[in-house]
């Protein structure tokens, strides 16, 4: 009952935020509201028992996509132009579609109904089989990494393609010097705190990476947190210093290496006489084999994701800083 209340209030707040986002003109304000929207929806996911989704949404929505959106707004304009005419046609389309969809919900099983068709078929099997065959407490991880390993491979490939696409479109401009922005030098508090936090964030990323079998987490989230740590460092000390830790060339190699680790696990299991991505073969004991396989592919996912996000960030920021000196 209490959860229902929190759920309903959070949904109401989300709706208000959605309307405000549509109405506002200033793009920076809209970006801030999107960040709040993402935080709210992540807490809603926790209420609705989807902890893995909540972790991903927190790391992606509130962190990386806000930062990237800000970088985009910084490269383009801040203010949205007023529309020239009244949007009557879109309004009509939207209201009609919405009404049809709401009419469609009238036949749906009610929220929280344990006898809904969705709960009767595949899901109970996964819940029963996971403890015996895979031995991993987190069923979402076992579904993602083991039962549906092919899907996750496809997903990693998509992320890799995205990274390659950004690389091709934005490219990367090398910088002649370590531009030490004077105002960065002034932010003493930020720099000290960053020094304190940077190792802790990386440590926490490793925890999320290898604890994903037992709690919420996994390779993707860990990769994002890892990249966020480096982005924090770049914000406090400038991009040049980060590139000394993790140069661009290394990132490109990492991006490929993650995908190759994933595929390599599949090929290894084929060489040992199983099917592609059949982890049972990897060790003498099937459960140990599953553990090993899941750990390795999660590692591959983590490496690729971290590299791709950092590549996107480098691409955006190296542009942003390059522009002003050209007209001086």
């Amino acid at each position, binding site marked *: 009952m209490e959860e229902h209340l929190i759920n309903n209030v959070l949904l109401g707040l989300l709706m208000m935020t959605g309307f405000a986002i549509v109405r506002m003109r200033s793009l920076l304000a809209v970006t801030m509201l999107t960040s709040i929207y993402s935080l709210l929806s992540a807490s809603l996911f926790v209420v609705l028992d989807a902890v893995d989704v909540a972790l991903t949404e927190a790391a992606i929505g509130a962190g990386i996509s806000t930062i990237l959106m800000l970088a985009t707004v910084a490269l383009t304009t801040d203010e949205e132009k007023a529309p020239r005419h009244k949007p009557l046609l879109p309004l009509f389309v939207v209201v009609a579609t919405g009404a049809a969809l709401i009419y469609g919900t009238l036949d749906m099983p009610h929220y929280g109904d344990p006898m809904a068709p969705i709960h009767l078929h595949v899901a109970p099997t996964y819940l029963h089989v996971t403890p015996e065959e895979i031995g991993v407490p987190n069923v979402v991880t076992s579904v993602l990494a083991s039962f549906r390993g092919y899907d996750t491979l496809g997903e990693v490939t998509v992320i890799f393609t995205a990274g390659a696409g950004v690389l091709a479109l934005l490219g990367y401009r090398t910088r002649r010097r370590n531009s030490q922005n004077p105002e960065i030098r002034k932010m003493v*508090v930020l720099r000290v705190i960053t020094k304190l936090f940077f190792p802790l964030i990386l440590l926490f990323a490793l925890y999320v990476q290898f604890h994903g079998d037992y709690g919420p987490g996994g390779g993707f989230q860990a990769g994002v947190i890892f990249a966020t740590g480096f982005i924090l460092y770049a914000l406090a000390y400038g991009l040049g210093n980060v590139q000394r830790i993790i140069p661009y060339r290394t990132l490109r190699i990492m991006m490929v290496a993650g995908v190759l680790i994933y595929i390599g696990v599949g090929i290894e299991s084929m060489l040992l006489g199983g099917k592609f991505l059949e982890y049972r073969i990897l060790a003498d004991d099937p459960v140990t084999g599953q553990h090993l396989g899941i750990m390795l592919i999660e590692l591959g996912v983590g490496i690729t994701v971290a590299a791709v996000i950092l590549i996107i960030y480098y691409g955006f920021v190296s542009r942003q800083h390059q522009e002003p000196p050209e007209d001086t």
Partner: protein
Amino acid sequence: MGAAVHILSWICLLGGACFLLVGAIGVLRLPDFYTRLHAVSVSDTMGAGLVLAGLMLQGGLSMVTVKLVLIFYFMIFTGPTATHALAEAALQAKLKPVVDDREP
């Protein structure tokens, strides 16, 4: 866990809730950015700290408390750093505080 710890944890939780409420009212009602910053720092430090302390007492000696201590540790460093950076950015952007002009 004794009843005394239980009561103490509830005192902490409800006290934290009071501070959060005060901070929320402050954010809505205070007249300009700098005073609102002050209101947020009330809920960021005392409010969050007391709520987390109450939860720690509920958790007892376990992994849960270790994680809560970590969250607390992160919060007491990040909160003031963010507020400080925010205030400095606003000052540099020459945001004027609201001042009472009347003669004393």
